[in-house]
């Protein structure tokens, strides 16, 4: 299961238009062992621009943002950075959005309300080749 997990730190990029969120993520993730913060962008267009310069292992992607539709951006990102894995990071808890994200190529979905530990677990799961979901999403999807 962990065969394709990267040996080096997991490189993480984050896309959210709320700077309070991106700053908090930077605080949390940059001080977590095994993770490497590579930066953030306020929208999906900036993510794609950034991807042309540097690819990250995991991209945390918000949904409710101005600019390019984040679901469309997942496929475009994969074309630029073949190994980047997108983990949706949103305050919207809707099953249809989770399904849409998975149909669009996302590796999982984390609710912002679910806390740091859920986020870290999901990041590690995705980096290790599994899907990553936080507890609210798992409950919503019918997992107990």
């Amino acid at each position, binding site marked *: *299961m962990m065969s*394709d997990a990267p040996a080096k730190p997991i490189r993480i990029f984050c896309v959210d238009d*709320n700077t*309070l*969120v991106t*700053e*908090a*993520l930077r*605080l*949390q993730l940059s*001080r977590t062992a095994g993770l490497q913060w590579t930066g953030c962008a306020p929208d999906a267009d900036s993510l794609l621009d950034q991807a042309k310069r540097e690819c990250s292992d995991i991209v945390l992607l918000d949904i*409710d943002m101005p600019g390019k539709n984040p679901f469309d951006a997942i496929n475009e990102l994969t074309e630029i950075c073949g190994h980047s*894995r997108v983990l949706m990071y949103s*305050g*919207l*808890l*809707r*099953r*249809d959005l989770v*399904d849409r994200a*998975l*149909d669009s*190529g996302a*590796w999982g979905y984390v609710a*912002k*309300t679910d*806390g*740091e530990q859920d986020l870290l677990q999901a990041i590690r799961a995705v980096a290790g*080749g*599994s*899907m990553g979901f936080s507890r609210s999403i798992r*409950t919503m*999807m*019918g*997992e107990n």
Partner: protein
Amino acid sequence: MLMSLLDKSSAAGAPAHSSSVCGDAGQSSGFQESASSAHAELMRAHLASIVDSSDDAIVSKDLSGTITSWNKGAERVFGYSAAEVIGKHITIVIPYDRLEEEPAILEKLKKGERVDHFETIRRRKDGSLVNISLTISPVKNSQGEIIGASKIARDISERKRIERELNEYREHLEQLVEARSAELAATHNRLRSSERLSAIGTLSAGLGHDIGNVMMPLNAHISVVENSLAGSSEDLREHFQAIHQSVEYLQSLANGLRLLAIDPDDDLREVNGVTNLSAWWGEAEPLLRTALTKRFRLEHDLPDDLPPAAIPPHALTQAVFNLVQNAAQALSGMKFESSDFIGRVRIAARQSSDRKSLLITVSDNGPGMTAEVKAHCVEPFFTTKTRGISTGLGLAVVHGIVQNANGTLDIDSVPGNGSTFTMIVPVAKRLEVNPDEAKRKAIVDVSDPRLRALLSHELALLNYEVSASSSRIADDAVLLVIDGAPERRAAAAEFVQRNQDAQALIIGTACNGQPLSSRMVEVGPNVKLEAVRQVLRNIACSTGTMQQR
């Protein structure tokens, strides 16, 4: 002219006393008289024939009301022949309840007045009634004295029938307009209500979302500060604990607000519309508590083993929130008999005896409702409270939500004994792990790492023990999922051949769940996740790993 003619006519309208046209032809004056008389006789005969052929009933009577003439039309309208009625009193054709009309008519005639187009009812020989329009004129003799009357009676039954039908149509139309107007007003009210609710839902969800967005950084910063000050003092630890508790409370409140959102895309038939009650309670409780003051207790009894309810979480929250609010208002209005009284609002759920429904109750120990209030309380804008405090929509909203979920709302309330609102909603159909079946093995031999992860995840949800290794296919595996070129079908075919219970799913180039054989299914590479899920569910059910409840 007609009157005098009739006065002398026979029963069938023929002259009763015709003058002879034979006379002394040698006497010129006599001849002239005779000629004039013959002419008059001809005229009478002509007119009599007109009268006779009239469709209208033409009848004459004397001032005592005795019938003196009766034409063919009268025979047709009333059913009596002339021989039967001449000499009889005119009341023979007047119904008993209209006998008073005759003296009034005679009175007018004696004064020389006419009665024009008097619409009334007369009775036929067979007893049936006929609507007629009467025109009655006095008949005078040559001295100008009134000696009788002529009546022209027109059968207006057909006209009356049409009038009656028109009236019925008009009344029906008015009823329709009234009913449609009421429906329109009700729809208008519902729209206004749903607009308000939608606005409240959107506002609440937005607020919940935004608070959630702030909570996340707040938690992050608190953790950083807390870690940097770790172990510095017991006091600080307590402060941090208090801050964490407050943030947690705010977070749960935000989650509850989010549960108020009305999602226009929601379809109650979809799995979106399913609520696990104990999980729902965890999120909704803080919000529900805000509807109650600290004087009142919010109690719950929602067993963990209840099946999910076929109602979306946000809809259930709205309904319960309204009921709790309602209970709180009822309790607030109570004059407490003793200071020991504790207001209680209790939320409970149990499964119906046929196990098809869930009975979700919100009860209180408040003042209860009178029969009249109970009968009207679910009507929109019905309220016993002052406008401004209540929208009058609360219970109507609950009723609407429960109806949308194909459920019913029962109200049990007795003045002095509290109220219990019971929402009876269907149990959601669901797949459950078959308790008689041990976990069975599935192998996901798919090259795309994300698709492999996704399929493994979905299969784990269906109680499979998933192996992603393609190096060795375990003999006891019951499901193989592979992708790639069509030739890989051979591997799948060999697998299902080796194990009689085994099935295979091929993510291939063909499309949409086409069964290649009874135990091999192929789906296209770009098929939507929900379609793949459905195929996997079908396989899981067919192998007994899962069962539909």
